[in-house]
């Protein structure tokens, strides 16, 4: 049955309406859902009716679900912490960890440097660090920058390449509003992503960076189109 044929549009429209309202018999419902996966006309008809119909739910009096619902969602998705306030603590712990690491490195540099300072390059801890990790909490990339620089230095830690004919793109996620593209991440283990403005301006209101998989040359739409593989909070040490 080819429902997207023009002469069957009327029938498709009726089936889609009943699907969206929910009155279709189970067999028809399953069938339509299956067809919609490969037929764009059918899929469009279903979602058009879903939009039309869902408007009716606007005034249903709200009922707050029990707190366990959110905890279960987080558990099922393996998200960072088991509840929202605890997650705040998680972020703080992470900041504390990176600060401690930065201070520790500095001490290490000073101690080692005492012996080798003539040979060692002068290492200034970057005042801005973003540890980008994947859903499995494994670190994939570390972004660092020094105030005033017009680029972010990215060090690849994970060994997951973006895949054939794909690139990784870096995004700034503002407190509110759409993600802002920062640029395609070049090939290599330590690379730079150039910025139009100094990094402290570019990221002044950006709490989080993320990396998505995009077609070569980056997202064609200016919005992320592929899966997000890494994200992390912007930690400022200034």
């Amino acid at each position, binding site marked *: 049955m080819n429902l997207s044929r023009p002469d069957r549009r009327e029938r498709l429209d009726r089936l889609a309406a009943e699907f969206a309202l929910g009155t279709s018999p189970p067999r028809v419902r399953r069938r339509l859902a299956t067809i919609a996966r490969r037929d764009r006309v059918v899929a469009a008809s279903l979602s058009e009716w879903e939009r039309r119909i869902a408007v009716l*739910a606007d005034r249903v009096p709200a009922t707050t679900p029990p707190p366990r619902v959110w905890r*279960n969602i987080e558990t099922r998705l393996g998200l960072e912490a088991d509840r929202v306030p605890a997650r705040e603590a998680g972020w703080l712990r992470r900041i504390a960890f990176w600060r401690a690491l930065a201070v520790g490195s500095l001490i290490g540099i000073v101690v080692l440097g005492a012996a080798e300072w003539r040979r060692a390059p002068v290492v200034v801890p970057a005042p801005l660090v973003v540890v980008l990790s994947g859903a499995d909490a494994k670190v994939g990339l570390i972004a660092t920058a020094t105030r005033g620089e017009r680029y972010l230095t990215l060090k690849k830690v994970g060994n997951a390449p973006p895949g054939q004919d794909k690139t990784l793109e870096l995004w700034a996620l503002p407190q509110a509003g*759409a993600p802002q593209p920062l640029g395609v991440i070049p090939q290599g283990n330590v690379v730079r992503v150039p910025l139009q403005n100094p990094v402290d301006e570019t990221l002044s209101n950006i709490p989080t960076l993320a990396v998505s998989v995009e077609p070569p040359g980056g997202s064609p739409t200016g919005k992320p189109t592929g899966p997000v593989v890494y994200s992390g909070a912007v930690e400022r040490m200034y």
Partner: protein
Amino acid sequence: MTVDGPRTATGERNERLAALLARIALGDQRAFADLYRLASAHLYAVAIRIVRDGALAEEMLQEAFVSVWHHAGTYDVAKSQPITWLTSIVRNRCLDWLRRREVDTEPLATNDDDAPAWEPPSDGPSPVDLLLAAADAQALRRCVDLLESGPRQAIALAFFHGLSHRELASRLHEPLGTVKSWVRRGLATLRRCLDAAGGAQ
């Protein structure tokens, strides 16, 4: 299609939800938590009406949010309001669950067991009340007013309580054919009216 009044609290909420969905598409957990805080009470209320069981509605809500986390990137702000998109996800979860349990018989085998073993909550607004309340947006109101009482009741029960044609027939004490044609006519009326209203804006 938009059946919305002037920029209101609803409009602002939708803008916020759309921004959160964009961030969730990038794996932003904080945005996900915010979306849950903003939308879960509405979506839970929708689910509980359809599946008529608190624990089951919780399960449906969880599944819906898991799906939102994975598919936020497919949300297209140009095509639908975020709350409408989210509501569709929840309703589909609930309806799929309800229909999976149902024996697939059509035409109706007349059987007393078909009578749904539940009554709508008597303390809350009835499905028809809810339909009329939703219709506060002027365009929608005009469209719902166009429905005769049979189609209006059938659509309200189907929408808010997830009743199938079969269950509608049993609940409204009408032949299956009558109920089906009420639903069909009602949907056709809503469609014509809502699309005309949407196009006029």
